[in-house]
């Protein structure tokens, strides 16, 4: 098979083609995209790039502190009032932080969304995984809640309602605009509890 033949085939395949007027065709694409957007925007399901670059994960910190995996912590500390009863705790909005270790705190997040089918929290403490940290719903109050172990410092997070809608924590005292333009709630956990 000659190089000339391969070269000519490649050149022909690389040549542009027109499909029914490219501009009109592109407009038709956007018409469909706008209709889809009216039903809901896509949401990022993976971690943000700047988070992927982060070397420290909360899991690593948990292991370093000799505490189990994060997913079991809400079962270990199922009742927020037990946390409040801890020797040194701080309250952030309705969120309760208890001293667990020099670098880790237990944080209980609560969210009122009576019509939601599922609520999760995504933040830097779980690498923005919208499936990793679901909140549990109280059958009487319909309040959603979860207990997390987080290291001291500032943490960004938001609630993800029904897998698609990102909502800042109404109880959080502060919020910041992330690199991606979204508004995130800010959870400040001090090294020494107040």
């Amino acid at each position, binding site marked *: *098979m000659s190089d000339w*033949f*391969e070269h*000519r*085939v*490649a*050149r*022909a*395949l*690389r*040549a*542009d*083609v*027109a*499909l*029914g007027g*490219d501009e009109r*065709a*592109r407009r*038709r*694409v*956007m018409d*469909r*995209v*706008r209709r*889809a*957007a009216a039903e809901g*925007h*896509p*949401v*990022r*399901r*993976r971690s943000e*790039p700047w988070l992927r670059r982060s070397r420290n994960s909360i899991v690593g910190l948990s292991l370093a502190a000799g505490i189990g995996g994060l997913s079991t912590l809400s079962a270990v500390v199922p009742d927020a009032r037990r946390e409040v009863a801890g020797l040194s705790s701080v309250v952030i909005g309705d969120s309760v932080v208890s001293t667990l270790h020099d670098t880790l705190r237990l944080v209980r997040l609560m969210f009122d969304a009576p019509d939601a089918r599922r609520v999760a929290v995504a933040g830097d403490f779980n690498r923005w995984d919208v499936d990793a940290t679901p909140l549990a719903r109280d059958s009487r109050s319909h309040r959603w809640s979860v207990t997390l172990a987080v290291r001291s410092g500032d943490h960004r997070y938001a609630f993800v309602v029904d897998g698609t809608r990102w909502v800042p924590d109404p109880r959080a005292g502060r919020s910041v605009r992330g690199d*991606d*333009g*979204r508004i995130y709630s800010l959870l400040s956990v001090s090294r020494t509890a107040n």
Partner: protein
Amino acid sequence: MSDMSDRDIIQRVLEGDVESFSHLVDRHYARCARVALRILGNREDAEEAIQDAFLRAYNALGDYEDRERFSAWLTRILVNQCRTVLARTKRRDALFADLDLQRLAFISSMESDDAVWPELEHVLDRLPAEQREAIVLKYADDLTYEEMSRITGAGESALKMRVQRAFARLRALLQEVHSV
């Protein structure tokens, strides 16, 4: 906007700026057209596959990770759409029946620009689907074999073999056209 990276545009779209998606459409439409038309061999089907691919890409934009080139990610979606269209329409057989080899040979003799090769466009349709897909991805989309492997699910050595066989088959088919 033209100097923004695909990643930056995607970020805007994910922030809710739907119109920014049009820049991705503008930037990648011609490439998608090259790929889809040469896989499907039919303009209507190609446009349908491209529209569906862009729509699926928009809906799945939250899943895109920038470790992969956006163009390769979009091509993967497009190839799946082309396969769906191919399976549904089976246009290949219909086009084969319509092939007028004498007319093509005449057009070819009048053509001075070797980037335009009408017989090739038609005989592509006579390649086995796997070979056609491989040679189109390799040359119409300038993908690496590694990227092609991720898109098609086939191994790199198998893809290289398909491309080689596609060349051999095309050569035979084109000789057939010229001998008419």
